[in-house]
Every structure is written in structure tokens, then in C-alpha cells.
């Protein structure tokens, strides 16, 4: 069993990362999906996770969103433990209320968008701010309109998701997540369910977020070209571990590990 007293109650110092995974292990029964993962993401950094399916890369995002529990280790967000809380000078598993408070700092976009079908694009973006942050409707509407403008969806704001294309839905979903003013944004294969011709409209939105906003982002993707373009750092996952990581130039240009080379050449062939 993991001894929680080995982990600090909070992270302090000058260079506290926005996100820190500390010896995080995730198992499903006998299957170990993530094995003592250590991963830091600095504030404002864009980190991309690549790797073969089943390598645990989506699990990393889902654990950060607290959609999955963790078996061992601690995750910190902005220096505070995410999955645990300090109680009587010790870390204990977080209760629901604490989890809800902590995860409100994190926004997530899903592969299948998951917009609320009974609400318009605008209402989708107002739902969180009004219902969770307790914002006034007029203020939430103003912010939602700004964000829809940012993702280029202003003209469709009164449409329901069923009237929007996949690319448009995903852009609204990005605006919906941003409306909560998260410190960390997670993108889980956000272009995988899209038709090739609309992938660009979503990647352009993400690109503009990277260039113009100081958001910390963690992205799982199968689009190597896109990852290479916009990431500060790329992590190659294999078998529940980070096999290799580095800047896009290092990882794509000169991979050191054999598995990384194999994966990248297999992906290249598929393209």
C-alpha cells in the first residue's frame, strides 16, 4: 500500500508546476494502465501526449479531470493536491466537495464533444458559469458571446448542437470549457471524431489559444503534424510509462528510443 506521508501536503517554492503527477499508478484489476507516472506541466506550457492505443495516454487526462480514481500517488494542481486533501497534517483521499472545488480549475474537451443537446450553443457556454460559478445571467451571456466569437461560432450561437457539424460542435465545446476560466485545459483526441476537412477549424482554435493565451494545456492526439507545430513538449507513452519526452524537434526529429522510432515510422507510413 502506498504511504501517503511520503508526499508533501502542498508544493511550495519558486517553480511550482501547474500540474504535477507524483508516482501515480492506475490499475484496472490486474492490468496496470499507468505505472508510477511522474509528469510536470509548467504554467502556460502546452504538452502533448502521443503513443499507441492502450498506452494510458487518455487515462492521464481523465485522472486529471478526476473522472478516474487513482490507485497510488498524488496529483497536484497549482501546488495543491487534487485527488487528496490535507487533514490533520496528513493527506487523505479527497471528499466530493473538495474534488468539485479542485476540478473547477480544469476544463476538458472530449473526443465526442458531449455538448448538451437540449441547449443552444450559447446556453451550453452559459450553463457552467451560471449554475456552478453562480454568475449573473447577463454577465455569463456576455462572456459566452465573447468566447463563441473567439472560436468563430458567433453566428451559430442560437443553434442546437444537432444543427452543427462536428467541427462546429467541438469549437463550441472548447468555448464551453473556457467559460469556466480554467487554469488547465485538457484536449482528449478532440479531432479524432471529425471529418478530415473540418479538423483544421478546430486545430486553428487551439493554435490561437496557444499563441494568444497563457493557458496550461495537456493534449492527447493522433495528429503528429499538429503536435509538432504547437507543443512545447511532447511525451511518448508506452505501456503506462513515459518512454521518451522532449521538444517536438527532439522527439520527432531525433528520437532516441527504439519504441519511439518504431511508433513514429508506423504513424508516418499510415499517413
Amino acid at each position, binding site marked *: 500500500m502506498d504511504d501517503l506521508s511520503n508526499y508533501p501536503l502542498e508544493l511550495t517554492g519558486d517553480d511550482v508546476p501547474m500540474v504535477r503527477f507524483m508516482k501515480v499508478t492506475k490499475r484496472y484489476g490486474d492490468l496496470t494502465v499507468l505505472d508510477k507516472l511522474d509528469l510536470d506541466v509548467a504554467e502556460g506550457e502546452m504538452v502533448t501526449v502521443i503513443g499507441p492505443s492502450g498506452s494510458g495516454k487518455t487515462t492521464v487526462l481523465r485522472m486529471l*479531470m478526476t*473522472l478516474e480514481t487513482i490507485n497510488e500517488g498524488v496529483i497536484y494542481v497549482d501546488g495543491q493536491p487534487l485527488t487528496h486533501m490535507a487533514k490533520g497534517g496528513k493527506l487523505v483521499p479527497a471528499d466530493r466537495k473538495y474534488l*468539485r*472545488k479542485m*476540478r*473547477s480549475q*480544469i*476544463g*476538458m474537451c*472530449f473526443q*465526442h464533444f*458531449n*455538448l*448538451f*443537446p*437540449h441547449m443552444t450553443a450559447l446556453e451550453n457556454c452559459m*450553463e*457552467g458559469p451560471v*449554475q*456552478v460559478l453562480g454568475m449573473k445571467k447577463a454577465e455569463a451571456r456576455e462572456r459566452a458571446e465573447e468566447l463563441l466569437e473567439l472560436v468563430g461560432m458567433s453566428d451559430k450561437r442560437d*443553434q*442546437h*448542437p*444537432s*444543427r452543427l457539424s462536428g467541427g462546429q460542435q467541438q469549437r463550441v465545446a472548447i468555448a*464551453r*470549457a473556457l467559460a*469556466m476560466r480554467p487554469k488547465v485545459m485538457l484536449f482528449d483526441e478532440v479531432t479524432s471524431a471529425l471529418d478530415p476537412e473540418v479538423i483544421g477549424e478546430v486545430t486553428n482554435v487551439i493554435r490561437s489559444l496557444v499563441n494568444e493565451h497563457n493557458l496550461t494545456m495537456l493534449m492527447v492526439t493522433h495528429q503528429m503534424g499538429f503536435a509538432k507545430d504547437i507543443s512545447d513538449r511532447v511525451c511518448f507513452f508506452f505501456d503506462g510509462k513515459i518512454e521518451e519526452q522532449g521538444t517536438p524537434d527532439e522527439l520527432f526529429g531525433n528520437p532516441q528510443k527504439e519504441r519511439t522510432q518504431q511508433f513514429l515510422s508506423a504513424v508516418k507510413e499510415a499517413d
Partner: protein
Amino acid sequence: MSYLDFLKEYGPRFWDGALVTAGQFLLATALAIAIALTAGLMKLSRNRIVHGAAVVYIEIFRGTSLLVQLYWIFFVLPLFGITLEKFTAGFVAVGMNLGAYGAELVRGGIQSVPKGQWEAAYALSMSPAKRMWRIILPQAFVNMLPPWGNLLIELLKNTALVALISVSDLMFEAKQINGSTFLSAQTFGTALIIYYILARFIVTPFMRWLELVMRRKLGRA
């Protein structure tokens, strides 16, 4: 006596009976919806006691005869100090019985909402109650409307049983008229037609309309 004369003579009593039937139907429906929602949500609870209470309720009211339940509520409950007026006992019995069936529809409707919707609401940090009320139930509601249409027609027809505890509904009036005129074919024929009209031309079109409205809200229509 021609059928027209028969209607002239007894029409007002059929009308009165139909109004009572409509009242029983509306009140029993309201009760059934409230019970279905409560028991359906309870059945999804992870708390064993809450879950168990819903299962027991559904088993009892779905697994035994509505007529016996009606008699229990009207004749047996007074022995325990709970006396209900016959009109109340009537719609309470029908509502509680159909509510048990409705609970399964609510449960199924909620479970039919894709997992991604739960996750998206969770990712927005919504509380479980708000997630259920604002995100899951509105979508579950649309999914369960067609089976609810069937259930409400069933409920309407089941209200005829309240005649057996002397609630003066359509069936009760028909029995009375038959008793004094012995015109069985005309009497029960008329009752049949009125039940059919209520179901086919009021309940069904209303449910269709509701479905359309809800689908429009989802932007599907």
C-alpha cells in the same frame, strides 16, 4: 327506445361519469409521475437502503393486482387509522400502481442518456443534483415519452376499477344505467366508445404533441 332517445335520456349521466373519470385520470397521472420520478431515482441510488426501498415498492405494486391494492387502500387502511374518501382512494391506488411501472421507465430513460453527458456535466463541476436535474433528466424525459404514452392509456383504462368502490366515474354510471334500463348493449357500448375517444383523441394526441415540442427543444425535429 331508439339509441338517440337513449343518449338524450342518459347522455348527461355519461357526461358526468366521464368528467369524474377525467378527474381520476389527471390526479392519478400526477401522482404516478411523482412516484415514478422518486422511485426511479431511488432505484439508481448507490445507497442500499434507498435502492432497496424502491425495489420493494416497485415489486409490491407491480407484482400484485391493482384491484386488490384498491380494496386494501379503501377497506383495509381504515383499520390502521388511515381513512381515505373513496374518490381519493381511487386515484391514489391507480397512481401508486402505475407509478411503479413508471419508475422503471424513468430508470431506463436516465440510463439511456450517454455516458459522455454525465462526464461533460461532471467536468463543469456541476453538483450531482444539478447534473441530474438540468442535464440528465431533460434528455431522459424525451427518451421516455413514447413508453409513457402507452402507460397513460393503460392508466386511463385502469381507472374503471374505481367504480368497484363506488366512485361515480364513467363505469359506475354505466353500471347504474344498465341496472335500471337493462339496455346492456347500448350502455356498455357507449362507455366503450367514450373510453376510446378519451384515449385515442385526447391522451394520444397530447403525448404526440409533447414529443414534438420536446424534440424541437432538442433541435431534432
